């Protein structure tokens, strides 16, 4: 919801007293940009080689640099190129749109839609290395998810143009540096699974408007407001904190503080192992027998009591 309202989350978390540490290293950015620039130089000559078409003469359309002013224009041009039957083979800096929770989101792939044999393929350029045919699995799955978003947006676009969305292949091409060198290697990823997950998630997502309607009418995240007012407003927006948030969201430190004392803050496996009991205090009270278990908790409570007894016995402490 905060994202939909376009709120500056890093600033917000700083205002409410939880400055985050986010940012990207200049070195990583430089390498990523360098790799992309190298591939796209000379109308994508090296990229075509990596894709297996070294001598192919294809059209190449650069739709211009990443800039907010050109959004509408680039999107229009993307539509135009894709609508054209004889369309370009390589489209650089295309712009796609996707409806997320009732909001239209612009997608700016740093990538190219590549057309061959009448099929459109999404090409994703990443600067992490593939060493001996293997790459960091977390990075690959992130790239696959990202590419799946583009595939979906591209299919929507084709549908709106009255073309067959099936023209967009569910196989995307990932181009990465090979081993410890800077030379590119292309691998094909099947993103059907990611597409299915994505569709399900998009369908389930409540629209931001519904969420906003549930808030008190005077809720505001104006950064000029005093921190206490902002903190109160944030408290009205419920978050489902999990430790994974720490590496993904600027507000994670705030949410972690909010979630202190819950078993979920220790991670999903801990919560599950404690029988799904919501708070640490409750779990310990059940384990110590200090609190009678209600019907739902009976099984978890018995397990926790046994665990507490065994733990105390093994540590040589008197059983609780």
């Amino acid at each position, binding site marked *: 919801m905060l994202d939909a309202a376009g709120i500056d989350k890093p600033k917000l978390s700083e205002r409410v007293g939880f400055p985050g540490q986010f940012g990207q290293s200049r*070195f990583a950015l430089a390498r990523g940009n360098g790799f992309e620039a190298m591939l796209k130089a000379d109308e994508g000559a090296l990229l075509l080689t990596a894709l297996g078409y070294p001598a192919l003469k294809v059209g190449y359309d650069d739709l211009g640099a990443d800039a907010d002013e050109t959004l509408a224009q680039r999107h229009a041009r993307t539509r135009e190129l894709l609508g054209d039957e004889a369309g370009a083979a390589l489209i650089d800096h295309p712009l796609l749109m996707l409806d997320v929770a009732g909001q239209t989101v612009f997608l700016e792939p740093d990538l190219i839609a590549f057309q061959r044999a009448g099929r459109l393929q999404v090409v994703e350029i990443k600067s992490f290395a593939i060493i001996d045919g293997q790459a960091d699995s977390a990075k690959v799955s992130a790239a696959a998810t990202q590419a799946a978003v583009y595939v979906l947006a591209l299919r929507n676009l084709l549908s709106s143009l009255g073309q067959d969305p099936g023209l967009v292949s569910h196989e995307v091409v990932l181009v990465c540096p090979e081993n410890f060198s800077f030379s590119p290697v292309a691998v094909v990823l099947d993103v059907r699974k990611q597409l299915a997950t994505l569709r399900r998630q998009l369908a389930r997502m409540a629209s931001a408007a519904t969420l906003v309607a549930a808030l008190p009418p005077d809720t505001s995240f104006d950064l000029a407001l005093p921190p206490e007012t902002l903190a109160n407003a944030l408290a009205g927006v419920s978050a489902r904190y999990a430790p994974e948030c720490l590496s993904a969201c600027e507000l994670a430190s705030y949410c972690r503080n909010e979630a202190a004392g819950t078993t979920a803050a*220790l*991670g999903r496996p*801990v919560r599950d192992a404690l029988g799904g009991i919501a708070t640490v205090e409750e779990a310990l009270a059940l384990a110590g027998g200090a609190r009678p278990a209600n019907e739902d908790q009976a099984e978890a409570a018995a397990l926790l009591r046994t665990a507490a007894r065994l733990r105390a016995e093994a540590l040589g402490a008197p059983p609780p």
Partner: protein
Amino acid sequence: MSTLTALARAQAVASGEAEPIATVRHLHLHRKPFVLVPLTMAGEANAPLAALAGASQMSPTLLVVPQPRNRDQRFRFASELAEVLLPYVDSFTGMAEPIAVDRGRDVRYRFTDAPQLWVPNTGGVEFVKLLGRSTRFRRTDGDYPVPPGVPLLGRWLTYFGQAAEMPGSSLLLNMVQALGLHWATGQSGAEDAQLAAQLAWISPPPGMTGRDAARAAEGAAAGPATDPEFDNKVLAPLMEADDVPGLTTALRDVLQPVWDQMWHALSLLRALPPGARVASRWDADRDGFSAYVAGIEEGLPPQPRRDGPVAAASRLHRLENAATRYGVQRALDDPLVMAEHRLTGAAFAGVVTMAKDDRVDETGKRPVLRPRIMVATTEPVRVEAGANLTSPARPAQKAKVVSITPTPDGADVLLELSGGMGRKLVAEPGSVPAVGERLLLTTLSDAFRPGAAFPDPAQTPWTHGGPVVE
């Protein structure tokens, strides 16, 4: 995550201090461990930036790469690391002991000690593997020669990297995992991945709770990845200015705290008594080390980029075997680990209520000593009649379940004992549990597991490189 460990985490949240989840140390801790704290350049494929390395806490060697994108400087780093690490590895090849094999008909030699490497976290292990991969195929002659020692370093790093995948091996260890094996903190596993925060929970500075100390320590990078903020504000300007002394100071300032944490953590681990079966696992590590030293002397080529199908299958089999054995041994060594099995019903404790220690079974060709005991337990028993149990106190003795009779507060388990009672038809004194003795019984067994027999090349399926069937 077992319920017991999760409970320990919940207790740590309540107390603000880390809680023990082991009563003994489950890894071999070397008298002279070699610590390596590496840093890499962001974005690059394992380009070393700096490292603190050495087997002496007081005098680590600082290695710095002023321009990590420069290939020559990268290999100079590898060469300098080789100059520190290879003599350390070599120092264990001086003394060997004879080991009888093949029932005493033959003898082989094993070095009396082996090297042990420590890195801060799993990223450190990955660094060791990748540096090994990027150096072991290099040549010291030809078009792009690398300094001598670099290819050999690559082989050893690869060897350590592979050993780290073997459950229970103590040749290459990562500190975050080692601490996590012995203590539960009151934060999530994701937060434990930061050595400084995890260590702060376990050993906070005086006057602070573990929780507060951990929050204060958060964000301190333990490598190999650097903090982006540090990259942008400190590293990049120094590199652009080619300020090598400034760079050296800045990198030492990042590495030194991690170095100190490593040694502090080692002293915490050293304070724990070692588990009874840790030494036997270290014997296996020394065996592996001795074999690899011999392999290098015989001129074995560097480890392949990828294992072939047969080698991969047999390695997987060994890893699975090692994982099972390691799990069982930890439970047998440590009542706190065994408690997890008691919770799930794979082990139970009880009191001996009846013991017939002179029972002899005469139904076979020869009479054999088969005493029977009855154990009363109040814990859940999830074994069936006919199952073979052992007790950690008497590892050589097998107890076969004859019957299980439910009682109002648990069960009476009748057991028939064999083994571990001497060779006569009368049990050695004390070898049969006496009435009133408290006994722990488990289905876990530390018995020898033979390696799988893999088919010979002609019989190997084509999926694994065997002949193609027409």
